[in-house]
């Protein structure tokens, strides 16, 4: 028996959602004909579609449940995962990196590494990234099953197989387009399913001032208690936050993870590709409304979580149960389900592209026709779903899936950020510098993970943050050192691939000031500063 007793209307709402996502996949099947259609959605999406998909692919239910649980456990400082840990990196991606990613017309991040460095660097990253997406997809699958087991009493095994089946069908039929369309439906469902929680909760507790008066003082600030690690519930000081979360982990994820970058590559032109992350960044500013505020409300409205076996992860579902009548419960649960499915389909589409384009076409069948590649893309989606069922069971064996995810990011994304950063902004970086820097960074992460106990860092979160910092630093320094003693690529080969070697006006049209990405970015920066001051 689960937390909720669903009515027929709730089941109907969930069923309608399944019908919609599969229907969209079927509808798009005959419209997806080329590999560009399948892997890059035809590069035809306007900025708002690419932008919403960019943020939705990251907005899995793990994120929603995890952030809400984090707010319950650590207080409002959890919002730093959005404001410090996402917005600056997203702006950097939009302004400086998107013109290069998009302008080189690559299908994937590994393909960019081949252009900038060499085949070995691309191969290394492709294989590691493909493995990581399968692990992450399994985590989302397991988390979905776990939540539905707790909330409505469904069997974990049945839930895993059902979610794999649905995602396998709609992604294999419509490729990235299908995934993106569903992510946008999921985005709106998540907002409409959860927005009532802060509205009803804040009106019950007497608004923001009423809420802050009911929770501990340290729980209502984001910077005021970060002078030392012991002053705030998270146990991380401002330096750790800025270097680890605000720089390495954040830039490592948002600027290099192909899962999110693939959505921006589906944009119709470079302006749309730059604006897509900016739209995502603006949404990240307001996302705490449905992901963090409910966690703070739960501290006062649902006390006792985290004690006696009651998981912090139940904060959001229990608030849904507290406020939502039949019907709305169905919408709320569908929103959670949509969140998990968007995270999972994001990983599956990213895997499919990297496998087909960077591994299969490069190392297995170099003469494959475009039609064959689309077929391989479809097959790889099905295979990825099956493997994800297996990795879901691996995820089951870890005590905390959120820590497991952060550990993966610290091993893989953090060093990759150093490789791409140097490659994009320093033309002297050499192909072998990039390769050896990347591999050394990853090995450093694995050694730290295996040999240095968490107790040395204090908490698991601190361990992940500092491990990310050291893997990034190692990769950065080794890349520099090897680049000094090896031969760089000739400038001719780096045109359009390195930041200083893009000709002005080569890929960007002249836009009116109000439409320029820099104007949008400055507005977002101003908003970011304002919210940081308000909630200091």
């Amino acid at each position, binding site marked *: 028996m689960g937390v909720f007793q669903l*009515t027929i*209307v709730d089941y*109907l*709402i969930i069923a*309608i*959602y399944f019908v*919609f996502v599969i229907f*969209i996949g079927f*509808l*798009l099947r005959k*419209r997806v004909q080329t590999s560009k259609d399948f892997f890059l959605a*035809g590069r*035809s*999406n*306007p900025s708002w*579609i690419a932008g919403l998909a960019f943020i939705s692919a990251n907005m899995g239910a793990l994120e929603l449940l995890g952030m809400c649980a984090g707010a319950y456990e650590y207080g409002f400082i959890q919002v730093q995962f959005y404001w410090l840990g996402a917005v600056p990196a997203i702006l950097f991606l939009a302004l400086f990196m998107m013109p290069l990613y998009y302008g080189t017309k690559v299908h994937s991040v590994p393909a960019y590494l081949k252009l900038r460095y060499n085949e070995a660097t691309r191969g290394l990253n492709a294989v590691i990234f493909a493995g990581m997406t399968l692990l992450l997809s399994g985590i989302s699958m397991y988390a979905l099953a776990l939540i539905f087991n707790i909330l409505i009493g469904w069997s974990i095994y049945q839930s895993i197989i059902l979610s794999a089946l649905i995602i396998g069908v709609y992604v294999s039929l419509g490729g990235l*387009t299908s995934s993106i*369309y569903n992510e*946008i*439906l999921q985005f*709106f*469902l998540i907002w*409409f399913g959860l927005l*009532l929680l802060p509205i*009803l909760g804040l009106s019950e507790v007497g608004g923001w001032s009423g809420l802050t008066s009911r929770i501990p003082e340290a729980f209502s600030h984001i910077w005021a208690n970060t002078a030392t690690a012991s002053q705030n519930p998270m146990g991380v000081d401002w330096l750790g936050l800025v270097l680890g979360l605000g720089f390495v982990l954040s830039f490592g994820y948002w600027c290099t993870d192909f899962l999110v970058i693939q959505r921006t590559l589906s944009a*119709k032109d470079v302006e749309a590709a730059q604006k897509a992350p900016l739209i995502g960044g603006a949404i990240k500013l307001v996302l705490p409304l449905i992901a963090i505020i409910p966690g703070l409300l739960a501290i006062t409205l649902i006390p006792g979580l985290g004690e006696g076996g009651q998981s912090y992860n139940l904060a959001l579902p229990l608030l849904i149960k507290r*406020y*939502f*009548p*039949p*019907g*709305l419960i169905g*919408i709320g649960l569908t929103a959670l389900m949509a969140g998990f499915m968007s995270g999972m389909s994001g990983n599956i589409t990213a895997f499919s592209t990297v496998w087909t384009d960077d591994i299969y076409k490069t190392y297995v069948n170099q003469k494959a026709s475009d039609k064959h590649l689309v077929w391989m893309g479809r097959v790889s989606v099905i295979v990825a779903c099956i493997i994800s069922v297996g990795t879901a069971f691996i995820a089951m064996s870890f005590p905390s899936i959120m820590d497991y995810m952060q550990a993966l990011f610290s091993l893989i994304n953090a060093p990759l950020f150093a490789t791409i950063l140097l490659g994009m902004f320093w033309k002297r970086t050499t192909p072998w510098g990039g390769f050896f820097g990347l591999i050394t960074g990853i090995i450093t992460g694995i050694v730290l993970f295996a040999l240095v106990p968490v107790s040395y860092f204090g908490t698991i979160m601190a361990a992940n943050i500092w491990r990310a910092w050291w893997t990034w630093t190692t990769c950065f320094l080794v890349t520099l050192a090897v680049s000094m003693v090896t031969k760089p690529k000739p400038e001719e080969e780096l045109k359009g691939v390195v930041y200083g070697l893009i000709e002005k006006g080569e890929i960007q049209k002249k836009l009116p000031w109000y439409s320029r990405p820099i104007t949008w970015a400055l507005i977002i920066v101003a908003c970011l500063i304002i919210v940081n001051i308000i909630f200091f």
Partner: protein
Amino acid sequence: MPKKQSKTTFVDLKFFLGLMFSIYGTLLAGTGIYYALNPVLGVDSSIDIYWGLFMLAIGIVNYYKSDKPSNWNKALAISGIERIEKRLKGILDEATEEF
């Protein structure tokens, strides 16, 4: 002539958003009205009604503004013709250059 978005994406997302929100809005508002007529202790039917009507309104607006399925095939056909034109132009340009 289909609208600009359908010409580039072939399937208008607003159509699905409109349809889904209209269905969900109707279901929610209907559930709220049912519980208003048949009150159950602890069930606040007014939230369902207000939120359902709000979703229904959003759904109708999106549906009304969307490009309907009857135009999608036209968009696909136009795009197909454009692709053939582009390919022919490319062949012609190459031939001209060689000549």
